[in-house]
């Protein structure tokens, strides 16, 4: 058993992030399970497609939540190394998202 002790600010942050991510994963799991059931029932293809895709999108956003919260906390604690790295990671993920949106857009005719 881990001895009881006062949680450090970083541990408090991790717990908060953990709850947030778990909630998002649970919502995603419900949507994915619902989408699969509808798909197997074979009647409401549009609805199942929507549920599956929304579930996957929420899943993909889950780690981004963690980075955003890490950025905010690093600003609060004024940890400059942490601020710089988390902000740069957020930039990379934003670039990925913009590239993906650009790829998914139908070409102009």
């Amino acid at each position: 058993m881990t001895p009881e002790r006062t949680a450090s600010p970083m541990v408090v942050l991790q717990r908060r992030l953990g709850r947030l991510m778990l909630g998002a994963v649970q919502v995603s799991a419900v949507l994915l399970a619902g989408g699969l059931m509808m798909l197997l029932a074979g009647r409401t293809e549009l609805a199942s497609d929507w549920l599956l895709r929304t579930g996957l999108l929420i899943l993909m956003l889950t780690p981004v939540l963690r980075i955003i919260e890490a950025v905010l906390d690093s600003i609060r604690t004024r940890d400059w190394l942490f601020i710089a790295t988390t902000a740069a990671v957020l930039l990379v993920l934003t670039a990925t998202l913009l590239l993906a949106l650009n790829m998914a857009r139908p070409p102009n005719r």
Partner: protein
Amino acid sequence: MAATDSDHSIRLRHTTNAPAAALVPITPAVLAVVMAVGALSGCLGALLGLGGGVFLVPFLNVVLELPLNVSAGVGLMTVIATSSVVSAGSTGRELVNLRLGMLLLLASSGAGLIGALTVVHLPDRALFGVFAAVTATICAILLTRLDRRNVILDETAYLGPLGGRFYEDESGRDVVYRTRRIPVALCVSAAAGYVSGLLGIGGGILQVPVLNAWCGVPLRVAAATSAVMIGATAVASAPLYYARGNVSAPLAAAAVLGVLVGSRAGLWFGGRARARWLKLLMAFVLGAVSLTYVLKLL
């Protein structure tokens, strides 16, 4: 698993950018198998901090004969799911070194994005070769460095800017560690991110052994920190696979649901297994994956 027109199966329609994955038969049996393998992958992934992709991708590619790009797309989704569950499950145990994780994530996410952009220009045989080489290398590293605990029992020791402290069950007390060779960790994280972007297997496959064997990070800390990182690394690649239509939504959903169950089981086992046995298990699995891809190349 070739599909025929007489199959009473639901055929998945991919978006326009996925010619290789134009038709995949989605039957209840296929979904059940993918879910079961996802559960096993999630369990092993959570146990070893790797993400389930390294086990699931070869299964989809070799056994179900899905194109590697579709297998990688599904693999990335399971890596994100494993990462989220393990990250949430390891909170409060002070095992995650978030400062170290974010620094290494900068290298791995950037490289992951490059990997996802370049994968379309590489032939399958090159990817199989990368798969075989990476898994064989890590297997060898693990087998030659099985006894690295990396913990410092003197709690007053200098930890450096990226060291940490955690309660270790094996010694029954607080222990500390110092992270060494940061440039090595950064280079390996970049390589791990690139491999993750190419193969959809999650960067943990490289990061965990190297952080443990060369950078002074205890295995449990390396696994927990890696588990947080691999999800964000996968997010640097997954949207591009999704936009290209390389993510089969029903297969990804089945695998993710399996992974969510398996990851919880892996966390339970992980708290009870000894580090040496975890390393041996990881080496055995990686050796098997490497051999599979060597055979595919022959």
